[in-house]
């Protein structure tokens, strides 16, 4: 076993442990911090697979934006120090186990069916190539995704914004 294998197994173990801690901890902020560890380990795994761009996107978008907004949202509304009893849920433990095991089973089956034991060796993703493919072959899905984001943006504003005309009347 080479050094890189040992390192990968160590990372996978870390990923598994922090993933479990995200679910089991009874403090929202701790859960978010463990989620950062999970995402960071995933980013390192992507770097080991020489997919640097994906790794950096994971850090920039998920750690830098999603987790930060998550922490911001939790802190601005309610985040008591210490454990939060509401977060422990004793109901439906059996169902949860069944569902998570079946998802694990489905993913494993699909991955084994698709790749079997063939090793795919890539030359590493060139960012230039990725950009060209995104704006030529995949231009339609790319634009579609941006429309989904635009829809989410407009929806968010509509839900959050009070009607100005009505508000003025109330205030007067």
């Amino acid at each position, binding site marked *: 076993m080479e050094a890189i294998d040992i390192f990968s197994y160590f990372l996978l173990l870390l990923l598994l442990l922090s993933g479990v801690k995200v679910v089991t901890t009874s403090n929202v902020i701790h859960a978010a*911090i463990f989620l*950062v560890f999970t995402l960071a380990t995933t980013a390192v795994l992507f770097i080991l697979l020489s997919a640097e*761009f994906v790794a950096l996107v994971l*850090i920039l978008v998920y750690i830098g934006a999603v987790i*930060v907004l998550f*922490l911001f949202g939790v*802190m601005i509304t309610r985040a008591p120090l210490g454990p939060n009893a509401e977060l422990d849920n004793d109901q439906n433990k059996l169902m949860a186990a069944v569902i998570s095991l079946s998802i694990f089973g489905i993913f494993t089956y699909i991955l084994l069916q698709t790749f079997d034991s063939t090793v795919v060796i890539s030359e590493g993703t060139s960012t230039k190539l990725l950009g060209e493919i995104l704006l030529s072959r995949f231009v339609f899905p790319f634009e579609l995704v941006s429309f989904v984001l635009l829809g989410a943006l407009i929806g968010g504003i509509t839900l959050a914004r009070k009607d100005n005309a009505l508000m003025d009347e109330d205030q007067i």
Partner: protein
Amino acid sequence: MSFSTELLIKVLVVLATAPVMALGLTLLEVKGSAWMQRRPGPLHVGLRGFIFPLATAAKYLQKETIIPNDVDEPVFKWAPAWVIAAVVGLFTIIPLSPTLIVRDLELGVFFLLAISSISTIGVLTAGWSSANKFSLMGGLRAAGQLIAYELPLILSVVGVVIQAETMSTVGIVEKQIEFGFPFVIAGQGIAFIIFMIAATAEMMRTPFDMPIGESELTMGFFTEYSGIRFLIFYISEYINLFVMCAIASTLFLGGYHVPLLPTEWVNFYGPLVLIGKTFLLAFILIAIRWSFPRFREDQLQTLAWKILIPLSLLNIMATAIMKVVF
């Protein structure tokens, strides 16, 4: 040399350089503020004030670490680590010459944006775990500010990337040498100004120091910190100042290159040139800090969302059009 020895040497060099640069910038700030505001202390006390930064560091190192009762201890203790790790990590892509660089990443500029966003987590968790309303307010203000100013920071760099056709920092400098002019003259002047404003806001320096706001929030998100942990926050502010100014001089001011000097000696004068440009930019930011009052929270958000972001989007459009036309 094997990979691990090389890595070890690089890490040690970076870990030695970062505090030295922070010390230099602290001295520059103390002397600059004293010069601008006629403070006798840093100009005359202790070897004409040159001992000041070392005295500050020594003071914080010998202070007792106080941890308040109600804090969330692991989160509280590790919050400064996020900040300093993110800041020191950025040394990876600062080119002192074409070869004197930790690693010339293909995605250099993108790496900068990704890694610098991590420090927000440190600031937020520091504010929350302190169990203090002022700290929490400071942390929330900081997060709102960092989220808002990260966008103009990213968008202003995109113009440079389009013009240089590369994201590697060495590649961007080489492009400017090839072009004959630094990008600040050759089309990215607006982007440079936006970058500097956004970088100042990211560093939470005056006039963007609402999150710290001594007069209303004591010390913002690091009110409860003392001793070595306070020192880490303090020093990472100056390391961040160095890194941001070094990146700005690399992207916009031609980095390690100066005209008329022979390019084969770049390994000797390159580091000095880059550090010189960095300290010049840092001095401008220091001068701004000691002459301007603080922004109000709504003015700060308006500046980011209504002025800087549309302006940087326009800059990207203009650069892209120029790129296609010429």
